[in-house]
């Protein structure tokens, strides 16, 4: 998946530690997969951030899929080997420094993550 390569490179550019790079790219992999599997395909955009001398990486995932009716619940869901709506959201959230998700059932979902150096 190209998403991972793009974000991996951004993470390198921002100087993230290896463990944070790995976590971020793994989260990206999960979110990109969610977009495809649950969202019917979508877009990722990503870039570098600079804030108060800190470097970071942001990634935004958007789809026009069915949406998630209860994001809080989706976030709390444990990781199971079965497929559940929003599977991986909670996990992805734990892997990044900042996480925000917005979803309107029937319209789509947007998830934004940030990890700092």
């Amino acid at each position: 998946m190209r998403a991972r390569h793009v974000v991996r490179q951004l993470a390198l550019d921002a100087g993230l530690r290896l463990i944070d790079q790995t976590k971020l790219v793994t989260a990206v992999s999960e979110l990109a997969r969610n977009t495809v599997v649950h969202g019917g395909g979508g877009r990722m955009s990503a870039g570098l951030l600079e804030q108060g001398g800190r470097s970071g990486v942001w990634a935004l995932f958007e789809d026009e899929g069915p949406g998630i009716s209860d994001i809080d619940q989706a976030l709390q869901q444990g990781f199971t080997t079965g497929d559940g709506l929003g599977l991986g959201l909670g996990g992805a959230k734990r892997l990044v420094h900042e996480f925000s998700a917005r979803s309107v059932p029937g319209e789509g979902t947007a998830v934004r993550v940030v990890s700092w150096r």
Partner: protein
Amino acid sequence: MSEGGPRIPILKLGHLLLVTIQVDMHDRMAVTLQEDLTGRIVETGARGVLIDISGLELVDSFIGRMLADIAAMARVLDATTVVVGMRPAVAITLVELGLALPGVRTALTVERGMALLPGPGDTDFGNAREDERTGD
């Protein structure tokens, strides 16, 4: 004919099978791997499978599920699966991701992994014939 990309090679290492995953895997590659592995286990009667993931920089839920599925499938065929070479960053990430890998044993190195698997004496290489021993 290749079904959607390069096949992951499965090597016979004595009485074991060794799979080395180094590339980003697509869905079809994962399915093909599971099918190939099932076939090889049955064909060789191997009772141990080593999956080397030392080349993987990340393991996400897709790969995790694939590993768990392989372990389950192998167990049905009376084979034990050991995953070796997990990178530290990957291990930490898996825990934080909350990804349990049911039925998947892990070992740091190939040597340690082999120690967890049945020895050569325990294997019969798919020969269904009974011992042609006379007498008692």
